[in-house]
């Protein structure tokens, strides 16, 4: 084990300033991902800034501002508490479903919402320190692109990195147009639209997101929507539970009779970031909510897919999953 300094903090400004002062430091919240990565020697922080006691908790209805009537999630609320909260179950069941599709009860009991968003890829070449990995060690190459890449990306990847974002929760947040609220070491707060928060790998796969140095997630906002009765999170995996997604789909519809007024489709297990299926959405708006239209939209989205040697199956699987998730959403989650 590598020695590290442990620094508890009690305010956001102290935490952000401490981490800004030491580029080798990392924030510690639930620790469900970071501690694993430290044991594997993938992450080697020389200091852990413990933020777990900061008062960044509480699921609340937003009472003013642009997202009035939406909901605010605390960055340090546990995944379990968020999924079970009556406001989320009632108004944003897509988010409850997505959270509950991830990890196990024990992990969700520890994992924070902010940590879920900032968790790192589970690409085995990222985890195995004897292998090359541009994300772990920039410039060493990508072990996965010519390696075993069955679980890897089919959309938006680069020659430098074909890893996927592992979160389920984030796929629902991407579909629901969430906004990430962050605060920097200079005390300045800013908001980042969820789709701009994570990035595609391009030539800098070591950067998972667009946070500036020292910035800390303080809350997540989800705007009000009319999707509560017509949304569905479909996760397809190698076994029924406790496994990462091969592909996953967060689908939400707002219908006028059988006509689609609004639609959101976000995809997991396919890209370096939660992937909003904008081509499929654009195709569907104004059309009838029929299986034929859902299938056509799915095919259109998957046309952009560029599979690797071992994951060509994800193209058709993804296409079918999109159509099925939309059908399930239409019927309120019932098959």
């Amino acid at each position, binding site marked *: 084990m590598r020695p590290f300094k442990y620094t508890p903090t009690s305010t956001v400004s102290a935490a952000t300033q401490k981490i800004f002062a030491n580029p080798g430091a990392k924030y510690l919240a639930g620790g469900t991902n970071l501690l694993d990565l430290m044991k594997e020697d993938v992450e080697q922080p020389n200091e852990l800034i413990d933020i777990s006691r900061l008062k960044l908790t509480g699921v609340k209805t937003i009472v003013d501002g642009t997202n009035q009537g939406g909901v605010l999630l605390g960055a340090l609320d546990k995944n379990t508490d968020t999924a079970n909260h009556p406001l989320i179950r009632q108004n944003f069941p897509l988010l409850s479903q997505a959270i509950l599709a991830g990890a196990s*009860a024990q992990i969700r009991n520890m994992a924070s919402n902010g940590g879920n968003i900032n968790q790192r890829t589970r690409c085995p070449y990222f985890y195995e320190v004897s292998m090359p990995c541009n994300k772990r060690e920039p410039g060493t190459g990508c072990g996965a692109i010519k390696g075993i890449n069955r679980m890897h990306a089919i959309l938006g990847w680069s020659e430098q990195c074909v890893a996927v974002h592992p979160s389920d929760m984030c796929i629902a947040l991407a579909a629901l147009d969430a906004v990430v609220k962050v605060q920097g070491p200079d005390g300045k707060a800013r908001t980042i639209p969820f789709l701009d928060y994570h990035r595609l790998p391009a030539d800098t796969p070591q950067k998972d997101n667009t946070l500036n140095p020292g910035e800390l997630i303080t809350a997540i906002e989800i705007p009000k929507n009319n999707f509560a009765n017509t949304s569905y999170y479909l996760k397809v995996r190698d076994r029924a*539970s406790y496994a990462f997604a091969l592909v996953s789909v967060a689908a939400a519809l707002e219908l006028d009779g059988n006509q689609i007024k609004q639609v959101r489709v976000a995809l997991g297990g396919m890209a370096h970031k939660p992937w909003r299926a904008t081509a499929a959405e654009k195709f569907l708006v104004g059309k009838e909510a029929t299986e034929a239209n859902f299938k056509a939209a799915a095919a259109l989205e998957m046309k952009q897919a560029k599979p690797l040697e071992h994951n060509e199956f994800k193209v058709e699987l993804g296409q079918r999953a999109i159509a099925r998730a939309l059908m399930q959403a239409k019927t309120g989650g019932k098959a």
Partner: protein
Amino acid sequence: MLDEAKNGEISYVTSDIKTSKGPVQLSEEEIRERMSGNICRCGAYPNIVDAIREVHTGKEVAQTGSL
């Protein structure tokens, strides 16, 4: 796990997450989902599921698994 269900905590396979209040009935599917992740998937072996059903319902459940 029995307490979580009693407290009304939902799981991925709970069908009425919007409306259900109070204790969640532990179907076989619910037990398997909730027990997965205990060590790995081993917690959802047939006899373990039967044993949990027996404790949850207070009624004897024939053990179906064979070794």
